[in-house]
Protein backbone atom coordinates (compact mmCIF):
# COMPACT_ATOMS: atom_id res chain seq x y z
CA UNK A 1 0.00 0.00 0.00
CA UNK A 2 1.47 3.39 -1.00
CA UNK A 3 2.07 6.37 1.24
CA UNK A 4 -0.28 9.24 1.84
CA UNK A 5 0.79 12.17 -0.35
CA UNK A 6 0.18 15.80 0.48
CA UNK A 7 -1.49 17.29 -2.62
CA UNK A 8 -3.30 20.52 -1.78
CA UNK A 9 -4.63 22.95 0.72
CA UNK A 10 -8.27 22.27 1.57
CA UNK A 11 -9.07 25.98 1.68
CA UNK A 12 -8.00 26.37 -1.94
CA UNK A 13 -11.09 24.53 -3.18
CA UNK A 14 -14.51 26.14 -3.04
CA UNK A 15 -17.55 24.02 -2.30
CA UNK A 16 -18.88 22.32 -5.47
CA UNK A 17 -15.63 22.95 -7.25
CA UNK A 18 -12.65 21.00 -8.46
CA UNK A 19 -8.93 21.62 -8.84
CA UNK A 20 -6.21 19.74 -10.66
CA UNK A 21 -3.08 18.49 -8.96
CA UNK A 22 -0.13 16.58 -10.30
CA UNK A 23 1.43 14.05 -8.03
CA UNK A 24 4.14 11.54 -8.88
CA UNK A 25 3.49 12.13 -12.58
CA UNK A 26 -0.23 11.51 -12.25
CA UNK A 27 -2.91 14.11 -12.87
CA UNK A 28 -5.70 14.04 -10.29
CA UNK A 29 -8.89 16.01 -9.84
CA UNK A 30 -9.68 16.94 -6.24
CA UNK A 31 -13.30 17.87 -5.54
CA UNK A 32 -15.02 19.53 -2.65
CA UNK A 33 -18.66 18.57 -2.23
CA UNK A 34 -21.03 19.52 0.56
CA UNK A 35 -20.11 16.38 2.52
CA UNK A 36 -16.36 16.37 1.97
CA UNK A 37 -13.45 15.97 -0.41
CA UNK A 38 -12.97 13.38 -3.16
CA UNK A 39 -10.27 12.49 -5.68
CA UNK A 40 -10.46 10.92 -9.14
CA UNK A 41 -8.26 10.73 -12.23
CA UNK A 42 -7.85 14.23 -13.53
CA UNK A 43 -8.02 13.41 -17.23
CA UNK A 44 -11.30 12.45 -18.89
CA UNK A 45 -11.37 8.84 -20.03
CA UNK A 46 -13.06 9.84 -23.29
CA UNK A 47 -10.79 12.28 -25.09
CA UNK A 48 -8.32 13.45 -22.48
CA UNK A 49 -9.80 16.79 -21.43
CA UNK A 50 -8.75 18.12 -18.03
CA UNK A 51 -11.67 17.50 -15.72
CA UNK A 52 -10.68 20.38 -13.46
CA UNK A 53 -11.73 22.66 -16.35
CA UNK A 54 -15.22 21.16 -16.08
CA UNK A 55 -17.94 21.91 -13.58
CA UNK A 56 -19.32 20.12 -10.55
CA UNK A 57 -23.08 19.68 -10.85
CA UNK A 58 -25.23 17.75 -8.39
CA UNK A 59 -22.41 15.40 -7.39
CA UNK A 60 -21.20 14.85 -10.95
CA UNK A 61 -18.24 16.30 -12.77
CA UNK A 62 -19.20 17.43 -16.26
CA UNK A 63 -16.35 17.28 -18.72
CA UNK A 64 -15.60 20.62 -20.37
CA UNK A 65 -15.13 19.18 -23.84
CA UNK A 66 -18.19 17.03 -24.61
CA UNK A 67 -20.29 17.14 -21.46
CA UNK A 68 -19.56 13.53 -20.51
CA UNK A 69 -20.44 13.03 -16.84
CA UNK A 70 -18.86 11.07 -14.04
CA UNK A 71 -20.15 10.42 -10.56
CA UNK A 72 -17.54 12.04 -8.34
CA UNK A 73 -17.79 9.64 -5.42
CA UNK A 74 -17.52 6.45 -7.49
CA UNK A 75 -15.82 7.64 -10.70
CA UNK A 76 -18.55 5.90 -12.70
CA UNK A 77 -19.10 7.23 -16.23
CA UNK A 78 -22.78 8.18 -16.31
CA UNK A 79 -23.23 10.01 -19.56
CA UNK A 80 -21.97 9.56 -23.12
CA UNK A 81 -19.59 10.21 -24.72
CA UNK A 82 -17.82 9.20 -21.50
CA UNK A 83 -18.08 5.44 -21.13
CA UNK A 84 -15.01 4.39 -19.18
CA UNK A 85 -15.02 4.93 -15.43
CA UNK A 86 -12.44 7.10 -13.70
CA UNK A 87 -10.27 5.73 -10.93
CA UNK A 88 -11.04 7.13 -7.54
CA UNK A 89 -8.44 7.61 -4.83
CA UNK A 90 -8.47 7.40 -1.08
CA UNK A 91 -8.29 10.83 0.48
CA UNK A 92 -8.04 12.27 3.97
CA UNK A 93 -7.73 15.68 5.55
CA UNK A 94 -5.03 16.46 8.09
CA UNK A 95 -5.31 19.94 9.49
CA UNK A 96 -5.90 22.00 6.40
CA UNK A 97 -3.99 19.67 4.06
CA UNK A 98 -5.47 17.14 1.62
CA UNK A 99 -3.66 13.81 1.43
CA UNK A 100 -4.30 11.11 -1.16
CA UNK A 101 -3.10 7.57 -1.64
CA UNK A 102 -2.44 6.56 -5.22
CA UNK A 103 -3.26 2.84 -5.24
Amino acid at each position, binding site marked *: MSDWLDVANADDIDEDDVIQVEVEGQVLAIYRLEDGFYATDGICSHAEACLADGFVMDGFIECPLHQGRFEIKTGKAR*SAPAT*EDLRTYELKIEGSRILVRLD
Partner: protein
Amino acid sequence: MSVEAVQAFGQKEVLTKKEYKPYIVRTNRHGLVRFAIHAGALMASGAAVYASLGTWWIVPSMACHAILMAFLFAPVHECSHRTAFRNRTLNEAVYWIVCLVYMVPPTFFRYAHATHHTYTQVRGWDPDMLPENMTLRDYVLFVLGTTFWRRNFRWLLFHPFGRIDPKQRYYLPDSEIPKVIREARIIMLIYAGVAAAAVYYGSWAPLIYWIVPRFVGEPYMRWLRISEHGDCEESPDLRRNTRTTMTNRLVRCFFWEMPYHAEHHLCPLVPFHALSRLHEKIRDKLHPVGDGYLAVNRQVVGNILSPGSGAMGLDESGRTAGQRSA
Protein backbone atom coordinates in the same frame (compact mmCIF):
# COMPACT_ATOMS: atom_id res chain seq x y z
CA MET B 1 0.97 14.31 -34.55
CA SER B 2 0.15 13.91 -30.86
CA VAL B 3 -3.45 14.18 -29.68
CA GLU B 4 -2.65 17.30 -27.60
CA ALA B 5 -1.21 19.01 -30.66
CA VAL B 6 -4.50 18.75 -32.55
CA GLN B 7 -7.03 19.19 -29.76
CA ALA B 8 -9.06 22.37 -29.96
CA PHE B 9 -8.26 25.11 -27.48
CA GLY B 10 -9.14 28.71 -26.74
CA GLN B 11 -11.67 28.75 -23.90
CA LYS B 12 -9.12 29.68 -21.25
CA GLU B 13 -7.81 32.46 -23.46
CA VAL B 14 -11.19 34.20 -23.56
CA LEU B 15 -12.78 33.45 -20.20
CA THR B 16 -11.71 32.34 -16.73
CA LYS B 17 -13.52 29.43 -15.16
CA LYS B 18 -15.21 31.78 -12.69
CA GLU B 19 -16.44 33.95 -15.57
CA TYR B 20 -17.61 30.85 -17.50
CA LYS B 21 -19.69 29.37 -14.67
CA PRO B 22 -22.69 31.73 -14.64
CA TYR B 23 -23.31 31.03 -18.34
CA ILE B 24 -23.68 27.25 -18.01
CA VAL B 25 -26.97 27.27 -16.11
CA ARG B 26 -29.51 25.09 -17.94
CA THR B 27 -33.25 25.45 -17.68
CA ASN B 28 -36.25 23.53 -18.97
CA ARG B 29 -38.19 26.71 -19.64
CA HIS B 30 -36.00 28.09 -22.42
CA GLY B 31 -35.87 24.74 -24.21
CA LEU B 32 -39.60 24.15 -23.91
CA VAL B 33 -40.47 27.62 -25.19
CA ARG B 34 -38.06 27.37 -28.12
CA PHE B 35 -39.21 23.85 -28.97
CA ALA B 36 -42.87 24.93 -28.80
CA ILE B 37 -42.17 27.85 -31.14
CA HIS B 38 -40.32 25.59 -33.57
CA ALA B 39 -42.90 22.79 -33.48
CA GLY B 40 -45.77 25.31 -33.69
CA ALA B 41 -44.22 26.98 -36.72
CA LEU B 42 -43.75 23.58 -38.36
CA MET B 43 -47.41 22.73 -37.77
CA ALA B 44 -48.47 26.06 -39.21
CA SER B 45 -46.28 25.63 -42.29
CA GLY B 46 -47.55 22.06 -42.66
CA ALA B 47 -51.11 23.39 -42.55
CA ALA B 48 -50.18 25.98 -45.17
CA VAL B 49 -48.83 23.21 -47.41
CA TYR B 50 -52.09 21.30 -46.94
CA ALA B 51 -54.20 24.36 -47.74
CA SER B 52 -52.19 25.20 -50.84
CA LEU B 53 -52.06 21.75 -52.43
CA GLY B 54 -52.94 22.02 -56.11
CA THR B 55 -52.25 25.77 -56.28
CA TRP B 56 -49.13 27.88 -56.91
CA TRP B 57 -49.16 28.80 -53.22
CA ILE B 58 -47.60 25.41 -52.66
CA VAL B 59 -44.25 26.91 -53.68
CA PRO B 60 -43.88 29.46 -50.85
CA SER B 61 -45.60 27.27 -48.27
CA MET B 62 -43.42 24.29 -49.12
CA ALA B 63 -40.33 26.52 -49.01
CA CYS B 64 -41.26 27.71 -45.51
CA HIS B 65 -42.02 24.21 -44.31
CA ALA B 66 -38.78 22.88 -45.80
CA ILE B 67 -36.68 25.61 -44.20
CA LEU B 68 -38.28 25.11 -40.80
CA MET B 69 -37.64 21.41 -41.09
CA ALA B 70 -34.00 22.02 -42.03
CA PHE B 71 -33.70 24.14 -38.90
CA LEU B 72 -34.45 20.98 -36.89
CA PHE B 73 -30.73 20.50 -37.08
CA ALA B 74 -30.60 23.09 -34.30
CA PRO B 75 -32.48 21.10 -31.62
CA VAL B 76 -30.69 17.93 -32.77
CA HIS B 77 -27.42 19.69 -32.14
CA GLU B 78 -28.44 21.33 -28.87
CA CYS B 79 -29.83 18.10 -27.44
CA SER B 80 -26.72 16.21 -28.53
CA HIS B 81 -24.81 18.49 -26.14
CA ARG B 82 -27.50 17.96 -23.49
CA THR B 83 -27.85 21.70 -23.08
CA ALA B 84 -31.38 22.07 -24.50
CA PHE B 85 -33.11 21.15 -21.23
CA ARG B 86 -32.04 20.87 -17.63
CA ASN B 87 -34.02 17.63 -17.28
CA ARG B 88 -31.91 15.01 -18.97
CA THR B 89 -34.75 12.59 -19.68
CA LEU B 90 -36.65 15.37 -21.41
CA ASN B 91 -33.50 16.26 -23.33
CA GLU B 92 -33.06 12.69 -24.55
CA ALA B 93 -36.75 12.28 -25.45
CA VAL B 94 -36.72 15.43 -27.58
CA TYR B 95 -33.35 14.38 -29.02
CA TRP B 96 -34.82 11.11 -30.27
CA ILE B 97 -37.85 12.81 -31.81
CA VAL B 98 -35.88 15.47 -33.67
CA CYS B 99 -33.24 12.96 -34.77
CA LEU B 100 -35.95 10.76 -36.26
CA VAL B 101 -37.48 13.64 -38.21
CA TYR B 102 -34.13 15.11 -39.22
CA MET B 103 -32.87 11.60 -40.12
CA VAL B 104 -29.73 11.18 -38.06
CA PRO B 105 -28.89 8.37 -35.64
CA PRO B 106 -28.76 9.89 -32.13
CA THR B 107 -25.84 8.10 -30.49
CA PHE B 108 -23.67 8.02 -33.57
CA PHE B 109 -24.31 11.68 -34.29
CA ARG B 110 -23.37 12.54 -30.71
CA TYR B 111 -20.00 10.82 -31.09
CA ALA B 112 -19.34 12.21 -34.55
CA HIS B 113 -20.16 15.69 -33.34
CA ALA B 114 -18.00 15.27 -30.23
CA THR B 115 -15.12 14.41 -32.55
CA HIS B 116 -15.76 17.59 -34.51
CA HIS B 117 -15.48 19.52 -31.25
CA THR B 118 -12.28 17.79 -30.19
CA TYR B 119 -10.49 18.35 -33.48
CA THR B 120 -12.21 21.39 -34.97
CA GLN B 121 -10.56 22.42 -38.26
CA VAL B 122 -7.71 19.95 -38.02
CA ARG B 123 -7.46 18.20 -41.34
CA GLY B 124 -7.56 14.44 -41.14
CA TRP B 125 -9.15 14.53 -37.68
CA ASP B 126 -12.22 16.79 -37.91
CA PRO B 127 -15.06 14.77 -39.50
CA ASP B 128 -16.88 17.96 -40.57
CA MET B 129 -13.95 19.51 -42.38
CA LEU B 130 -14.70 21.03 -45.77
CA PRO B 131 -12.70 19.67 -48.74
CA GLU B 132 -9.12 20.86 -49.08
CA ASN B 133 -8.69 23.50 -51.80
CA MET B 134 -12.46 23.60 -52.25
CA THR B 135 -13.57 24.10 -55.84
CA LEU B 136 -16.80 25.67 -57.00
CA ARG B 137 -18.08 22.18 -57.73
CA ASP B 138 -17.28 21.10 -54.15
CA TYR B 139 -19.08 24.18 -52.85
CA VAL B 140 -22.19 23.53 -54.95
CA LEU B 141 -22.27 19.84 -54.03
CA PHE B 142 -21.83 20.70 -50.36
CA VAL B 143 -24.65 23.25 -50.40
CA LEU B 144 -26.94 20.89 -52.31
CA GLY B 145 -26.44 18.45 -49.46
CA THR B 146 -24.85 15.61 -51.43
CA THR B 147 -22.06 15.12 -48.89
CA PHE B 148 -24.55 15.33 -46.04
CA TRP B 149 -27.01 12.82 -47.50
CA ARG B 150 -24.33 10.41 -48.66
CA ARG B 151 -22.94 10.32 -45.12
CA ASN B 152 -26.35 10.08 -43.46
CA PHE B 153 -27.66 7.37 -45.75
CA ARG B 154 -24.54 5.33 -45.06
CA TRP B 155 -25.21 5.68 -41.34
CA LEU B 156 -28.89 4.84 -41.65
CA LEU B 157 -28.57 1.98 -44.14
CA PHE B 158 -25.34 0.30 -43.10
CA HIS B 159 -25.33 0.60 -39.32
CA PRO B 160 -28.37 -1.69 -38.84
CA PHE B 161 -26.27 -4.44 -40.45
CA GLY B 162 -23.32 -3.75 -38.19
CA ARG B 163 -21.31 -2.06 -40.91
CA ILE B 164 -19.62 1.03 -39.52
CA ASP B 165 -17.29 2.85 -41.87
CA PRO B 166 -13.75 1.98 -40.70
CA LYS B 167 -12.78 5.64 -41.24
CA GLN B 168 -15.43 6.64 -38.69
CA ARG B 169 -14.68 3.93 -36.14
CA TYR B 170 -12.37 6.26 -34.23
CA TYR B 171 -15.35 8.33 -33.10
CA LEU B 172 -16.77 5.44 -31.14
CA PRO B 173 -15.63 3.52 -28.07
CA ASP B 174 -16.01 -0.24 -28.68
CA SER B 175 -18.53 -0.48 -25.87
CA GLU B 176 -20.95 1.80 -27.77
CA ILE B 177 -21.02 -0.21 -31.01
CA PRO B 178 -23.87 -2.54 -29.95
CA LYS B 179 -25.93 0.50 -28.90
CA VAL B 180 -25.30 2.24 -32.23
CA ILE B 181 -26.35 -0.86 -34.14
CA ARG B 182 -29.43 -1.37 -31.98
CA GLU B 183 -30.49 2.24 -32.45
CA ALA B 184 -29.96 2.05 -36.20
CA ARG B 185 -32.23 -1.02 -36.31
CA ILE B 186 -34.93 0.72 -34.29
CA ILE B 187 -34.77 3.73 -36.62
CA MET B 188 -34.96 1.49 -39.68
CA LEU B 189 -37.99 -0.30 -38.22
CA ILE B 190 -39.74 3.00 -37.49
CA TYR B 191 -39.10 4.30 -41.02
CA ALA B 192 -40.22 0.98 -42.50
CA GLY B 193 -43.36 1.17 -40.36
CA VAL B 194 -44.15 4.68 -41.63
CA ALA B 195 -43.57 3.55 -45.24
CA ALA B 196 -45.74 0.45 -44.77
CA ALA B 197 -48.54 2.48 -43.19
CA ALA B 198 -48.39 5.03 -46.02
CA VAL B 199 -48.65 2.27 -48.62
CA TYR B 200 -51.40 0.45 -46.73
CA TYR B 201 -53.55 3.56 -46.38
CA GLY B 202 -52.56 4.91 -49.78
CA SER B 203 -51.37 8.11 -48.10
CA TRP B 204 -48.90 10.60 -49.56
CA ALA B 205 -48.73 12.51 -46.27
CA PRO B 206 -45.26 11.34 -45.12
CA LEU B 207 -43.87 12.24 -48.52
CA ILE B 208 -45.54 15.67 -48.73
CA TYR B 209 -45.10 16.84 -45.16
CA TRP B 210 -41.82 15.20 -44.25
CA ILE B 211 -39.63 13.55 -46.92
CA VAL B 212 -39.93 16.10 -49.75
CA PRO B 213 -39.51 19.18 -47.51
CA ARG B 214 -36.70 17.46 -45.69
CA PHE B 215 -34.74 17.18 -48.95
CA VAL B 216 -35.83 20.55 -50.32
CA GLY B 217 -34.78 22.38 -47.15
CA GLU B 218 -31.39 20.85 -46.47
CA PRO B 219 -29.46 23.07 -48.96
CA TYR B 220 -30.52 26.09 -46.92
CA MET B 221 -29.07 24.55 -43.77
CA ARG B 222 -25.85 23.63 -45.62
CA TRP B 223 -25.65 27.20 -46.95
CA LEU B 224 -25.90 28.52 -43.40
CA ARG B 225 -23.55 25.97 -41.95
CA ILE B 226 -20.74 26.54 -44.42
CA SER B 227 -20.15 29.82 -42.63
CA GLU B 228 -19.35 28.09 -39.34
CA HIS B 229 -15.85 27.07 -40.38
CA GLY B 230 -15.64 27.78 -44.11
CA ASP B 231 -12.47 29.69 -44.96
CA CYS B 232 -11.52 29.89 -41.30
CA GLU B 233 -8.03 29.18 -40.11
CA GLU B 234 -6.98 25.53 -40.20
CA SER B 235 -5.66 25.26 -36.67
CA PRO B 236 -6.96 24.07 -33.31
CA ASP B 237 -7.37 27.67 -32.08
CA LEU B 238 -11.13 28.05 -31.62
CA ARG B 239 -10.93 31.83 -31.58
CA ARG B 240 -9.83 31.75 -35.21
CA ASN B 241 -11.03 28.46 -36.68
CA THR B 242 -14.75 29.02 -36.06
CA ARG B 243 -16.94 31.90 -37.18
CA THR B 244 -19.80 33.60 -35.45
CA THR B 245 -22.16 35.13 -38.03
CA MET B 246 -24.30 38.11 -37.23
CA THR B 247 -27.86 37.64 -38.45
CA ASN B 248 -31.47 38.58 -37.76
CA ARG B 249 -33.64 37.48 -34.84
CA LEU B 250 -35.74 35.10 -36.90
CA VAL B 251 -32.75 33.04 -38.02
CA ARG B 252 -31.32 33.12 -34.52
CA CYS B 253 -34.62 31.92 -33.13
CA PHE B 254 -35.05 28.92 -35.43
CA PHE B 255 -31.34 28.16 -35.42
CA TRP B 256 -31.46 28.07 -31.62
CA GLU B 257 -28.75 30.78 -31.41
CA MET B 258 -26.21 28.69 -33.31
CA PRO B 259 -25.05 31.70 -35.36
CA TYR B 260 -22.99 32.35 -32.20
CA HIS B 261 -20.90 29.47 -33.31
CA ALA B 262 -17.49 30.51 -32.03
CA GLU B 263 -18.98 31.08 -28.58
CA HIS B 264 -20.52 27.61 -28.76
CA HIS B 265 -17.23 25.94 -29.70
CA LEU B 266 -15.26 27.83 -27.10
CA CYS B 267 -17.74 27.12 -24.33
CA PRO B 268 -19.81 24.07 -25.33
CA LEU B 269 -21.33 23.77 -21.85
CA VAL B 270 -23.24 27.00 -22.38
CA PRO B 271 -26.88 26.42 -23.37
CA PHE B 272 -28.24 28.10 -26.50
CA HIS B 273 -30.18 30.77 -24.61
CA ALA B 274 -27.04 32.14 -22.93
CA LEU B 275 -24.93 32.42 -26.10
CA SER B 276 -25.96 35.96 -26.97
CA ARG B 277 -24.91 37.13 -23.50
CA LEU B 278 -21.63 35.30 -23.86
CA HIS B 279 -21.16 36.92 -27.27
CA GLU B 280 -21.37 40.35 -25.69
CA LYS B 281 -18.62 39.40 -23.27
CA ILE B 282 -16.11 37.82 -25.65
CA ARG B 283 -16.87 39.21 -29.12
CA ASP B 284 -13.70 41.29 -29.23
CA LYS B 285 -11.61 38.17 -28.90
CA LEU B 286 -13.18 36.37 -31.87
CA HIS B 287 -11.83 36.58 -35.40
CA PRO B 288 -13.53 36.45 -37.75
CA VAL B 289 -17.14 37.41 -37.10
CA GLY B 290 -19.22 37.20 -40.28
CA ASP B 291 -21.44 40.06 -41.41
CA GLY B 292 -24.42 37.92 -42.40
CA TYR B 293 -24.69 34.58 -44.19
CA LEU B 294 -24.88 36.08 -47.64
CA ALA B 295 -21.67 38.02 -47.09
CA VAL B 296 -19.84 34.99 -45.72
CA ASN B 297 -20.97 32.78 -48.61
CA ARG B 298 -19.89 35.47 -51.04
CA GLN B 299 -16.51 35.57 -49.37
CA VAL B 300 -16.18 31.78 -49.48
CA VAL B 301 -17.08 31.69 -53.18
CA GLY B 302 -14.86 34.72 -53.82
CA ASN B 303 -11.92 32.90 -52.28
CA ILE B 304 -12.63 29.83 -54.38
CA LEU B 305 -12.71 31.88 -57.57
CA SER B 306 -9.59 33.86 -56.78
CA PRO B 307 -7.63 32.15 -54.03
CA GLY B 308 -5.61 34.41 -51.78
CA SER B 309 -7.63 37.40 -52.92
CA GLY B 310 -8.29 38.30 -49.30
CA ALA B 311 -11.95 37.95 -50.08
CA MET B 312 -12.54 37.10 -46.43
CA GLY B 313 -12.29 40.82 -45.84
CA LEU B 314 -9.99 40.48 -42.84
CA ASP B 315 -7.46 43.07 -41.78
CA GLU B 316 -4.11 42.08 -40.24
CA SER B 317 -5.78 41.47 -36.90
CA GLY B 318 -8.22 39.08 -38.52
CA ARG B 319 -11.25 41.41 -38.17
CA THR B 320 -13.95 41.81 -40.76
CA ALA B 321 -15.32 45.15 -41.85
CA GLY B 322 -18.30 44.62 -39.56
CA GLN B 323 -16.10 44.11 -36.53
CA ARG B 324 -13.97 47.13 -37.33
CA SER B 325 -17.02 49.33 -37.54
CA ALA B 326 -18.68 47.80 -34.45
